[in-house]
């Protein structure tokens, strides 16, 4: 992991997201450096401070993020700048295989000024594998507990005058781990029994193709992605489902062209994505099929004004539509314009970065009788970065972010969940202050953050059978984030991240007033230590999460837990490069649950083999 108060500069042809935030607080996670760890994408993201992961338990099962206290629908997730959030505003990170990725950029703090509606807590950009120069073949194979197999095979080569990369990947797992079940949950003294998770299997396969090409002075790239998956929906430990199934597809195409026009750098991007989801069995007595399609065009212009000012402007348009079964569903159109300035003072040591974005969200199609909503969202932000020398830097940001209600929340009834077209957009006023230090062999940063949220959306019981989303008034979330990394003598390397979070409901009736928000643990920390030479390098990781409340009254909670992971890697061959790695996860076999009753796996073991071959 690179701790990066300063955003890592990227090669121009690989820059997928030109809208970088010059004063933002960002953690960059080098996925390729951690390829030997038996982790999925969500678990890697969760090694950044400010992140709280919500898991359904088991490889291939749904995973979402809470970032700086904003719920998963308030965290934007991108793949090379292409939005991955679905019709419900949430991105399922289990559908983003690690094999596709080069690095993860976790931008903490309100991101609507740079990325638009939905960035209440921040944004995560997953950057796909870089295309290496020349010809290269690479493969990874992992096998482990619960019959879990993860494999990927890729090839890079010159193609049509450019450079291309083709990757295929697959994952399957039975997910049949043992978990501790409490048959008498209200009895504090009874013994737990061991149950086996059933209908928790998952299978996922897909491919990715990238092509970078130069057309005259223009740099262009194309990304094609396809994915098919199927998984059992095992339900919670207390309400298991032996039959409920989810299957789906994702097809995505994106193109980018970057060049200079009249002295300005112009970046044009287009993308289209369609996600199909089918739910059946168990609760879904009648199969439910949803097809979410989104397409967008973005023009991003940046130019330098003298030596001390950089201007940027973005125009963006999106069209989202959803069909449910054979019925055409709602459609939302989104148009956004933003401007950003970057002003340098004190010989470039002080940067001021004001920016402003306006999003207009309009329902182009809505169910009969439902109003076609229109929301205008103003998202200003003012950031500053001050470099003091000696590797010390101060960053601060103040801004306002929004999230327009999602299509599902506004218009689509799903099972027992009703929509509510009267929902207002969520809003957040946010600020942070970060002090970072970067030395030759070590880095550290300490960040304080605060967010004031308004009109948060949550589902509430709607008798006699259903639930419906409503706006809740006001809440605050604040805290601190600490991250550090150091290369130590004797080949040791240490990394750590800690997050302190306070949350509070600020406007409600006496049942909920001044209570903590659920699913926001007060403390979360991770520490990792590597040791040993390349031919036999060990690692140990400790992951702590404090008690978290499960309901708005603060009367039900998940207990704190500590997980311990151990790993050992060895470079067996140099050419072709072959690396083997053995990992023991949750070594102490801690039985715990997440979210609202999904058991997590106990102790497991995984063996990974990786190879890379470069013909001379």
């Amino acid at each position: 992991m690179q701790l990066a108060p300063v955003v890592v500069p990227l090669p121009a042809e690989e820059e997928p997201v030109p809208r970088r935030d010059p004063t933002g607080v960002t953690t960059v996670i080098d996925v390729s450096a951690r390829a030997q760890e038996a982790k999925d994408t969500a678990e890697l993201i969760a090694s950044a401070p400010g992140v709280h992961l919500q898991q359904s338990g088991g490889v291939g099962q749904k995973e979402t993020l809470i970032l700086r206290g904003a719920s998963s629908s308030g965290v934007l997730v991108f793949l090379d700048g292409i939005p991955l959030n679905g019709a419900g505003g949430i991105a399922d990170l289990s559908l983003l295989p690690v094999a596709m990725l080069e690095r993860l950029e976790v931008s903490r703090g309100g991101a609507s000024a740079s990325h638009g509606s939905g960035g209440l807590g921040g944004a995560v950009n997953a950057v796909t594998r870089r295309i290496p120069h020349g010809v290269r073949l690479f493969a990874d194979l992992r096998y482990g507990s619960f019959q879990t197999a993860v494999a990927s095979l890729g090839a890079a080569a010159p193609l049509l005058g450019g450079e291309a990369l083709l990757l295929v990947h697959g994952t399957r797992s039975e997910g049949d781990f043992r978990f501790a079940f409490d048959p008498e949950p209200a009895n504090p003294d009874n013994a737990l029994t061991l149950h086996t998770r059933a209908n928790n299997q998952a299978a996922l396969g897909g491919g990715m193709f990238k092509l970078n090409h130069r057309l005259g002075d223009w740099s262009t790239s194309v990304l094609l992605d396809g994915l098919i998956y199927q998984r059992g929906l095992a339900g919670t430990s207390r309400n298991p489902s032996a039959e409920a199934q989810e299957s789906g597809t994702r097809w995505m195409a994106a193109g980018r062209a970057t060049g200079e026009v009249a002295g300005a750098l112009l970046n044009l991007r287009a993308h289209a994505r369609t996600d199909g989801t089918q739910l059946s069995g168990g609760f879904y007595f009648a199969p439910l099929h949803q097809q979410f399609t989104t397409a967008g065009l973005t023009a991003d212009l940046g130019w330098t004004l003298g030596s001390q000012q950089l201007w940027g402007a973005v125009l963006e348009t999106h069209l989202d539509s959803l069909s449910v079964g054979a019925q055409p569903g709602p459609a939302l159109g989104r148009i956004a314009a933003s401007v950003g300035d970057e002003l340098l003072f004190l010989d470039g040591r002080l940067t001021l970065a004001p920016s402003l974005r306006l999003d207009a969200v309009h329902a182009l199609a809505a169910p009969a009788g439902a109003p076609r909503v229109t929301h205008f969202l103003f998202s200003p932000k003012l950031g500053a970065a001050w470099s003091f020398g000696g590797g010390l830097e101060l960053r601060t940001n103040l801004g306002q972010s929004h999230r327009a209600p999602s299509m599902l929340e506004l218009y689509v009834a799903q099972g027992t969940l009703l929509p509510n077209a009267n929902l207002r957009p969520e809003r957040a006023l946010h600020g942070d202050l970060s002090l970072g230090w970067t030395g030759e062999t070590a880095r550290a940063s300490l960040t304080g953050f605060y967010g004031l949220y308004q009109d948060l959306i949550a589902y509430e019981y709607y008798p006699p059978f259903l639930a419906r989303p409503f706006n809740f008034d006001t809440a605050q979330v604040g805290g601190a984030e600490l991250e550090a990394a150091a290369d130590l003598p004797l080949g040791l390397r240490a990394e750590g991240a800690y997050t302190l979070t306070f949350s509070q409901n600020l406007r409600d009736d006496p049942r909920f007033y001044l209570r903590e928000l659920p699913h926001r643990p007060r403390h979360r920390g991770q520490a990792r230590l590597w040791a040993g030479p390349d031919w036999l390098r060990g690692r140990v990781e400790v992951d702590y999460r404090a008690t978290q409340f499960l309901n708005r009254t603060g009367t039900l909670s998940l207990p704190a837990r500590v997980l311990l992971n151990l790993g050992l890697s060895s470079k067996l061959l140099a050419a072709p490069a072959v690396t083997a790695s053995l990992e023991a996860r949750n070594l102490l076999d801690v039985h715990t649950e997440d979210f609202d009753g999904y058991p997590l796996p106990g102790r497991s073991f995984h063996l990974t083999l990786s190879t890379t071959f470069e013909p001379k």
Partner: protein
Amino acid sequence: MKLHRVCLALSSLLLFTACPDQGLICPEGQVACGEGSAATCQEFRSDPDNCGGCGVACGDGQACVEGSCRCQPGATFADGACVFTSFDADNCGTPGTVCGADRVCSDGACVSACPASATRCGRSCVDLTDNDVHCGACDNACGSATSCHAGTCEYDVVAACSTNGQLVGMQAGSDLLGPTRAVGTNRPMALAPLRDVILVPDVDQGMVQARQSDLVTVGTTVGVGTDARFVLTEDPFVYVVNSVSGTLQIFEAGGASGGGHELALRAELPLSETDQGNTFAQGVAKSGSTLYIPLQGGFGAAAAEGQKVLRVNVSNPSLPAREGAIDLTTVALNSFDGGVTLPRPADAVVHRGALYVALTNLDEAYAPGGPGILAKVDLATGNVTAITLDSNVCLAPTELVSSGDRLLVSCLGKVEYSWTHPYPIVKAEKSGLVVLDGNDAPLAHWTPGGCQDGNDAGCLLAVPSRFAVLGDDVYLGDQNGGRMFVLELKADGGIVERRGFHATSGPLQACPVDPERQVSNLIDVLAVP
């Protein structure tokens, strides 16, 4: 640099757009009185100390009714005051009739001494066991909407407002509502009597005790499971069925503690013998030392966990034991369209020596797919016979109450939500109350009435929830509009509506409706013994 100044100014201006409102919001039906940190939530509808406004107190003999002070039941308004002519020596028999200095007022007459059956309070002769002004002791007046029960002021009927997290008490006969009172931590799920308190399990998995006299929370809270919607009390034992947790808990009540009673958990019993799904228990009945717990079962294959009534032997409350189940799949369900339906039992009651089980008869979409049926179980032999309810008046029977020879059945009916904005309940048909006689033959039925199309503006359809019987009166809740219907059972078997859409006086708005959510779930009703 003009350009960036404009940009900075614009950003700064918009950064600090309106900050969100903060502070306490009073629950539905209540209004803040006072300023700042001294503000408290008060109810104007029926609070005699804040009747119609902050600090507006009703006088002696007055009750607060719909926000105005009126004479209490039994009192007469005369010369600007409410007087009790049956025992007030200054208004004895009629207002203004003053008994002589050496005489007392008894039953509206001036007499020389109180009869032996009465107690003298000042110059009044009263029965301390049922006098609302001198209850249990002289000058111990019962508060608004409470009655004197054997010398203790208590509500006659209590309703649980789940949406609002409140309880509300009521006086029988006068149908006066007391002030709403917050209870538990979140949403109450059920009500059950225990000595002088009411047990109230909460959706947050705690069961609190509320004093029957004023509904104030007392004693300690004990932990229960998820969805503890069914509580049966048989002093000193309390049986709690946790529907989602799938367990039965048995508590034993001990001595007084903190104004309530100690409750010790004796046992918790999983209701399923497999881990293949949840039983979704619905209801609990007891005969001898056996509990009968209907199991509704889950979806798909997990439906097999239900469709039966579990027998649990509780002769040793610390060691309850499952003793097999009564199979309900043998009952002919006669689905309307020949498709598959399941019994999906919703409640059970022991009535005239037999066990009656309400079968909702639902299809796979959880909608009524056949007539409502009562499975009548011979407790000696286990034989099951079916009583089919008239599908023109009752679908999906959900609660049973035994009242003498009569069996009362409430029917949820067929509830349909609109699938267009704003998604209200648009239809609730074949719902209401059915009365069966001692031969299980229908005696009468009642439907809530009111507006019939939930699409109409302001139409909040009535959807029956649970009900309680007090004497010959039935108090039936509405889980959509928070209303209470009051019905009178007549000797000839008929039903007369006292408070409802068919009566001169409409239903009681026991639980306030949240203006934003437009729903109020009156989830349970208890007739205080």
